[in-house]
């Protein structure tokens, strides 16, 4: 039984959401159309949703640079996969330990973990420690380690899940049968909390995939291990440099990608993420819904 008034509310919802959907998607369309625009047209008419003249020149240029971009993707994929797998496993193992309430020293460990959520030394202190003590500058560890590998929030999420969703009797009976803790973790706790592993894993993967700050802090601009986001950021930095030195549009050739090539590189940078988006989005919504129901 749908009343007339409910329909009007539904229409209002449609209108607002259609506007927001357009606002959300339009910039990506502009990016895409700009990358297919003829360079001269782009300079004359600006970036446009309906360019006068199309051209594949930007992509021709990119395919000639394929080595750099392909390598960027390879680095991104390696860092994302290694960081996510290692990060999720060590977080979950710590959480498993912390979910055992009679563990001696558990409160101390919990405090040490919680404290990291409240206080930090700041980015510069981290930078000093990582570069002066561990010397990870210009190594792949510079992309992997600082900040991203694991955090206290993920550990707490795992811990809560282990505590509330896995029956203690199950773990105890496995212990009585002589299973080792690592075995119990891998054979019982892990399979039973798969949704949590996927949720945390996807969030971590997203952070690694999109990260450009570590590349900016820990890689020199001519480093050979630039991830795709670092490449995008470096192009940005070059343009900023030229603009700040008032040479702006006078120098559009050379190593600075011209108007349309820039946009094409950004398209290449964002397409895989948009391709993976349906998977990300589904799990993301699932995770959020599970979180709300739990409360």
């Amino acid at each position, binding site marked *: 039984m749908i009343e007339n008034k*409910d*329909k009007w*509310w*539904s229409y*209002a*919802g449609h209108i*607002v*959401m*259609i506007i927001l959907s357009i606002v*959300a*998607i339009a*910039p*990506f369309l*502009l990016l895409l159309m700009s990358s297919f625009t003829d360079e001269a047209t*782009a300079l004359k008419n*600006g*970036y*446009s*949703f309906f360019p006068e003249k199309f051209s594949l020149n930007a992509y021709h240029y990119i395919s000639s640079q394929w080595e750099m971009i392909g390598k960027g993707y390879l680095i991104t994929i390696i860092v994302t996969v290694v960081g996510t797998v290692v990060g999720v496993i060590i977080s979950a193992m*710590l959480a*498993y*330990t912390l979910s055992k309430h009679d*563990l001696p020293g558990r409160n101390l*460990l919990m405090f*040490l973990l*919680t404290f*990291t959520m*409240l*206080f*930090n*030394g*700041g*980015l*510069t*202190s*981290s930078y*000093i*420690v990582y570069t002066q003590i*561990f010397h990870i500058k210009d190594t792949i560890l510079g992309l992997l*380690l600082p900040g991203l590998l*694991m955090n206290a929030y993920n550990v707490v999420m795992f811990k809560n899940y282990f505590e509330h969703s896995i029956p203690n009797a199950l773990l105890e009976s496995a212990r009585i049968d002589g299973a080792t803790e690592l075995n119990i973790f891998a054979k019982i706790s892990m399979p039973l909390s798969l949704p949590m592993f996927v949720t945390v894993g996807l969030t971590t993967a*997203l952070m690694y*995939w*999109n990260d450009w700050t570590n590349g*900016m802090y820990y890689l020199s601009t001519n480093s050979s291990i630039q991830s795709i*986001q670092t490449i*995008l950021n470096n192009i940005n930095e070059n*343009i*900023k440099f030229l*603009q*700040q030195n008032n040479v*702006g*549009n006078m120098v559009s050739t050379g190593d600075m990608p011209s108007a349309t090539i*820039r946009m094409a590189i*950004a398209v290449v*940078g*964002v397409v895989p*993420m948009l391709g993976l988006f349906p998977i990300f*989005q589904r799990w*993301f919504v699932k995770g959020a819904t599970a979180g709300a129901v739990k409360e």
Partner: protein
Amino acid sequence: MRATTDMKLSGVRKKNKIKWKSYIPLYLMALPALIYVFINNYMPLYGMQIAFRELDFSGSIFSGKFVWFDNFKFLFTTKDAMIMTRNTVLYNLLFIVVGTIFSVFVAILFNEILSKRLAKFYQSAVLIPFFISMVVVSYLGFAFLSSENGFINNSILKPLGIDPVSWYTEPKYWPYIILFVHTWKGMGYSLLFITVRIITISKDYYEAAKIDGATKWQQIFYITLPFLKPVIVLMTILSIGRIFYSDFGLFYQLPMSSGALYDVTTTIDTYSFRALMNLGDITMSTATGVYQSIVGFVLILVTNYVTRKFSKEDSLF
């Protein structure tokens, strides 16, 4: 009698020993993460001492003379300290107020949509910006705002006969641009966050209200909003606890580091970064970080205290 006590005691001792040993695998499992936390979160606390030392270009980084609070004194005599603090706090307040009102408004209307298939489509569409890095966002921004090639100047202002605007050098537009992009990037997430909570409200309340003749407005004001209140208050408190921290990417990437915009785009995070990377002033950069950490810490303690009063289970500790 004595013998039995001894036996009992040694039994207990033996049992304790075995028990303690049985925990070793658990400690070992925790070890990798603990080592990482030590390196990533605790060693930087040791690095904080740079903020209290003189900048020493010759020796190692930890060899500068201790000057205690001189760096902070210098920092707070510059007008930068005021500007970055003002920007960080005011932008966050703006985000909290506008963001909350906007997302509750949108979420309530979103939940009135009768076609679930279309609703799903909208939800996916508005979530897309959330998954994109700030570097890409700055490219998108440039496509719209570039003074020579930008969409706004060429395709909107020109046909209307309005003079082109040099967006990247005009500070007055940037608070709006930053608010817009922040809302644009976060709307899908906040919509999801609130929607999943509206869904958990039992339909019985609405049915009962309808039978009593309540209008939609009344249902929103007397059922939906009161149900959302706890989570809104909690989110606000958490955001206030983070008010000294800014989204570095938003303030660094989007304005393309345009010097003309520093007054309205410098936050504590971007200032600290520029002091380190552009000026090479490690002590000033660390001092800024220490200032942020300490004020941030106090704010989190205060807001956590308030949260405890408000709802014990939602407080952090």
